[in-house]
Structure formats: structure tokens, C-alpha cells
């Protein structure tokens, strides 16, 4: 084999090795960091795994938001109008987080059945519903209307 050809072979070998390493790393990183989505019913039925983090979507149940008086800890429940799931979070909630609003929480399910959220996402305006949340629900409008009615009732009482 002449030196020229050997060099070309070395270059190709180097490239294959490098690209192979990149592919391996990519697959490894993907495996670690894919987050599946579950709606509230699925989590309540125990379909979500305990341990790895996943995304949970639903409407924030009206009247369920409880804040600690000395820290940024907050608890609330998410619903898809069939089942409810309790969520704990510590930190600053996004501007568009409200009771009755459709949101997505990223977090891990604890042994006590509470989702420890590391991140809470609420986007767009008050009428926006994350598509995952909308798709998991049987009747989006009815669900939203039920939450709004609940909010009105709470307001009237106070």
C-alpha cells in the first residue's frame, strides 16, 4: 500500500471513529433525556414510572393552590377532569400560571403519589391550552367551563 493511500485510509478511519463516537454519545444522551408525557388520569392510575422525570399536563384545579407562608414552596392539583394529581413545586411560577389554566409540569413521581415538579410551564394567553393537554381530554370546553364555574362560585362565596 503506498503512503498516499495509507494516509487516506487513516483519515477515513479517523472520521469513522469520530462520527461513531458522536453517534454513540447522542444515543446515550437521548436515552437519558427523553421525557414522556402523561395526563393526570394516567398518573393517577399509576401508569407513570416512579423515578425518571416526565411531563404531566392538565388544568390547575381551582382552589387547589396552597402556598407556604415562609418560603416559595407551593402545592396544587392538576386535573384532566377525570382524575386529579397533586404537584409540589419550589420556586417562582410563570406569569401565566393561574387556577383553571392549562399547564405542563416537568417532574418526578414520588413514592407518596405526589409529583415533585422541577419546572412549571404556562404559555400564551389565558385561553391557550397546551396541545398535549387538549388531546388527552374528552371535552376540553366542558372541562374549562367547569373550572370557570368553580372559580365564580369561589369568588361569590368570599
Amino acid at each position, binding site marked *: 500500500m503506498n503512503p*498516499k493511500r495509507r*494516509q487516506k485510509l*487513516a*483519515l477515513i478511519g*479517523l*472520521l469513522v471513529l*469520530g*462520527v461513531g463516537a*458522536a453517534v454513540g*454519545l*447522542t444515543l446515550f*444522551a*437521548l436515552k*437519558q*433525556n*427523553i*421525557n*414522556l*408525557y402523561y395526563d393526570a388520569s394516567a398518573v393517577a392510575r399509576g401508569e407513570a414510572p416512579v423515578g425518571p422525570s416526565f*411531563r404531566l399536563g392538565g388544568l390547575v384545579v381551582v382552589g387547589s393552590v396552597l*402556598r407556604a*407562608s*415562609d*418560603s*416559595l414552596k407551593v402545592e396544587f392539583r392538576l386535573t384532566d377532569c377525570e382524575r386529579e394529581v397533586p404537584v409540589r413545586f*419550589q*420556586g*417562582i*411560577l410563570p*406569569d*401565566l400560571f393561574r387556577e383553571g389554566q392549562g399547564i405542563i409540569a*416537568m417532574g418526578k413521581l414520588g413514592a407518596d403519589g405526589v409529583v415533585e415538579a422541577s419546572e412549571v410551564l404556562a*404559555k*400564551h*394567553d*389565558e385561553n391557550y391550552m*397546551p*396541545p*398535549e393537554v387538549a388531546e388527552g381530554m374528552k371535552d376540553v370546553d366542558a372541562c374549562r367551563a367547569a373550572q370557570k364555574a368553580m372559580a365564580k362560585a369561589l369568588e361569590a362565596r368570599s
Partner: protein
Amino acid sequence: MIPELGHFALITAFVVASFQALIPLWGAQTGQNRLMAVARPAAFLQFALLSLAFACLTQAFVVNDFTVAYVAQNSNSLLPLRYRISAVWGAHEGSLLLWALTLAGWTAAVALFSRRLPREMVARVLGVMGVIAVGFLSFLLFTSNPFRRLLPDFPLDGGDLNPLLQDFGLIVHPPLLYMGYVGFSVAFAFAIAALLAGRLDSAWARWSRPWTTVAWCFLTVGIALGSWWAYYELGWGGWWFWDPVENASFMPWLVGTGLIHSLAVSEKRGVFKSWTVLLAIAAFSLSLLGTFLVRSGVLTSVHAFASDPVRGLFILGFLGVIVGGSLLIYALRAGGVRSEGSFELLSRETGLLLNNVILAVCALVILLGTLLPLLSDAFGWGKLSVGPPYFNTVFPALMVPLFFLMGAGAWLRWKRHGLAEWFRRARFSLALCLVLALGLTLWLGKKPMAVFGVSFLALWILAGVWIDLGDKLKHALSWTAGLRRLSRSQWGMLLAHAGIAVCALGAVFTTVLSEEHDLRLTPGQSVAVADYRLAFSGLKEVDGPNYQAMRGEFQVYEGEALLTTLYPEKRAYTVNRTSMTEAAIKPGLLHDLYVSLGEPLDGGAWAVRVYYKPLVRWIWLGALLMALGGALAVSDPRYRLARQQAKASLGKGVEAA
């Protein structure tokens, strides 16, 4: 009347673009000069017509013409004039009009600055750009007409612009980004024209180099501005989120960076030519893909204003035609391309090849992470998301070898470079960089792995710049004389590489050394961050033109000295009833202090974010250095001289054939 005039101008521009697409290409294939001559006037006319259409839409915003549906949805009589003007491109229809106008602008620029290019080349380049324009203008006219009227029942006032977009950042970010995205269409058109002509020579590479670099500069500044805007406007201090929309702009940037380098090899050494063409096709295809991702509404993010399946399908179809068509031409024509030069394993060519491979792999990896959730949903594999940790694992792992190669390879010679000679030149710098990086790591005493890694690589890149400079000045009489004789492209490369080092330092230091506190504060309390003390003295209500705000007041002390007072705001926009966080920042070259208001809590307390961000400005400073480097390289007079020579040599080539 004026919106109808704009609509009419848009339709006329569509017709002109159709002529520009068909006639010159036909003329170039059949060798008819009269047909080829149509290209230039058509390009100018199309630009004039789209400018008119854009002016008409702007006028509708300025005079608050709420009979126009687009104005009614995205403006309001209370909106300040500057935001009424920037609202023109604040949502789907208008931003597509800006896209089309930018494309027409680039086309007109090519028509204007290509006087010295061969007639067939100009005709083909402008023809290909005409094809792209036809696609976008028909998209505008058939699915997203910005001039649609709401008659007779029009609203008395508009729905207001998304508050996130009421900001200086939005005024400049999209136009710059579009200049970059669309600018790659020129490189694409040159590549397709060269394929059609069956002549991939170094002249073609030289012609498309300055255009590619200009587009890349715009894209660089556009992305940096977007990152800066996200940092101060989204209210939680992040500067990069690996959001699909950001990835959509970053992928063309990565491939474009590769393209700039591989064009240099193709021009100077006559190798990698078919690879360069492929990169040019890929860069523009990724720009189109970005447009598809952002505009079709397949993603949910701040940028996805509309979700309309017809629009998505249209862009997807257009993307298919452009990518499929260009790859078909590539497959038919690129087979006959022969490399003219040869090179050895240790040479500048190999270095640039590795640069290209890493950048391309990086773009692919990001593409995978961006599209996987969409594909998984479309094929029914379940709903999943790929989070930032994926990108934060893979991206740095690819950047480490790339940065090492930048320092090691930027000063390699073409063709061959002896290994012993390389080591003799590099060993001192290598040792110095290691020692300095180790010193910095020990001095900081935090996050040793990341700090050592990035500071070594940044220093190593600078060392590469330094060695390269030394090589160039070897034969000069003195340093000053040598520096003065450096060409602008050489300065450009040095600056751009230094920019990467600065940007990398900023990115990693901010990521690993930031102090972030989310706190519950009542007025009167204070908090210590890094070397500062922040005192929360209270809140008051203030009224803006179209919002009400709670404005917090924070005194910043260093020791006992009062440095400044920060005023973060929580705004409630009246018309579309959304609330917005306006962070207050004490900027600095070495660190930023960042305060933003969360939400009111019981007992007069507020949730407050207080961040200390070291070197965060370096991220954008580095990007500016890169863009400045690109601008210097383009301004090199050799491109203008070279064009004349190219014409001469091409003339000879034709005679010989």
C-alpha cells in the same frame, strides 16, 4: 385604498417573480441572450413592488387601519408608534412579507453587484432565486394574505401586539435573522447555478464566498440579539433554551459556518467541491426548515403564532420541492466533479475537513433532538420531549474537539505540514495555555473541570491566532509594518476565531458560576449575592401607555457604598390581559446583577429572582467579534480584483473548450 394597492403590488410581484424564474433559466439553457437579459430588470422590479407592498402594510399600522384583519389582530391605538411599526413583522403574515421582501432585496443586490459575472451565471442565479420567490409569494397570497379586510364589521380597536414582542429586541431581531436565513439563498442559488452549468470551478467558489459570509454575519448578529432579548425580556435570566425555534436558527448557522470554511478550500485548493455544494444546499434547506418549524404552528412556543394545517402543508411541500429538486440536480450533476488538488494527512485541508465534519454532525445531532418529538408524535410512538440536558450533553462534547482543532489547525499550511515542525511550534503555547488555565482554575476554586476545560480551550484558540499571526509576520521588517500589511480577510479570520474563544468563555462561565436565588422578600429585607447586598425598599404602581405595572425598588450596595438602584417591573397589559415580567439588570463586562419580580405572596411579600451572572455579556460580545470578523473579510478588496481576474480566466477556459 392603500391596502388594496399593497395587495395589488404583491400580486404583480408574484407575476414578475414567475417571469424571473422561468425566462432567464430557459435562456441560459438554450443560450439566448435576450431571454437571459430579463433577469436583472425583473429582480429590480420585484424588489420595488415588494417594497411598495411592505410600505402599504406599514402605513395601515401607522394610521391604525383596523379594517385590515392583520392590523386588527396585532395592533392597538394605544400601542406606541415604534411598536406599531415593528408589529408589521410581529406575527405570521407580516413576517412572511418581510421574508419575501428580504429575498427580493438579496436578489436585487445580486443583480446590482454581479456586473462582472458571466451572463449565464447571473441568469441562472437570479432564476433560481426567482423560483424561491414564487414559492414564498404564492404562500403569502394563497394562505396568508396580510391585506385581508374585515368589512363591513371591523373592530373599533385592535387586539394589541403580544407584550413579549413590545420591545427593542423585536424591532431588530427578526429583520437581522431573516437577512441571514434568506441570505443563504444566494449561496444556494450560486451552487445550483454552478451545477446546472456543470461548471464547479474555483471561480464559482470565489463568487459565492462574500455573499455567504455576509449572510452568516447577519445570522450571527441575529441569533446573538435573540439570545440577548430572551435574557432580559423573558424574566428568568436564561440566554439559550434549546427551544426548537432557537435550534431552527442555530442549525443553518452551524452549517453556514462549515460552508464558509469549505468554500475557502474549494476556492484556494479546488478540493471538497461537491461537499461544498451539498453544504450550500443544506444551509438553505435548514433555513427553510426553520421557517416551516416556526411558521406552521407544529411547535408550541412563543414564536408559533398561528396553527393552520394548510400553511404547514404548503411550507412542507415547498421544502420538499426545494430540497428534493436540488438534491436531484446534485445527484445528476455532481458525479462528474473531480478534485484538482491533493493533500496529506497533516495539512490545512484535513483540518478544515474535520471542522466541516464536526459542524455537520453537530447540526445533525441538534436536528435529531429537535425533530424527534414531532416525528414521534406523527408516527404515533407516543408524546415525548427532548429536554435541554440532551443538548447540553452532546453539544459541548462536540465543541471540545472542534475548539481544540481550531487552536491546532488554524495555522497549518496547505497541502502538507510536518508533524515534528507542528510540535516544535506548538509546544510552548500548549504548555503556557495549560499552566494559565490551571492557574485560573485554582484561583477561582469552583467547578474545576468546566473552568479548566473552557479556559484552556479558549486560550488555545487564542494561541492558534497568535501563532498564525507570528507566521504571517515572519518576513515583515517590523511588527507594525507586518500588521499593516495583513489583509482584511486575515484580520477577519483572527477576529472571528478570537470571538469564538470569548463566546465560549462567556457561555461556560455563566452556566457553571452563576449564583441564582429565588427568594421570598418583604419590603425592608435585604439579600447578599456574590459581593453585593440588595435591599428591597418597596413597590409602587406606575402606568405605561398600554399597561399598568408594579415597580419594585432595589438598592444595590457594595460594602457600604450605594452603587445603583434597580427597578424591576411586573406589568399587566390592559388589552389582551396578560402579565409580563420586566427584569432590571445592572450590566457589567465581568458580571451582571439581575433582579426580576415573580408574583405577589401573602403579607406584602414578593417572590423575587436575584441572579449574579459572571461573563454573561461575553457571549454576545464574542458573537459581535465573529460578525465583525466576517464583515472585515468581505470588505477585502481582493474579491473585487478577483472577479475581474476570474472573468479573464473563465474567458480563456471557454476558448480552450
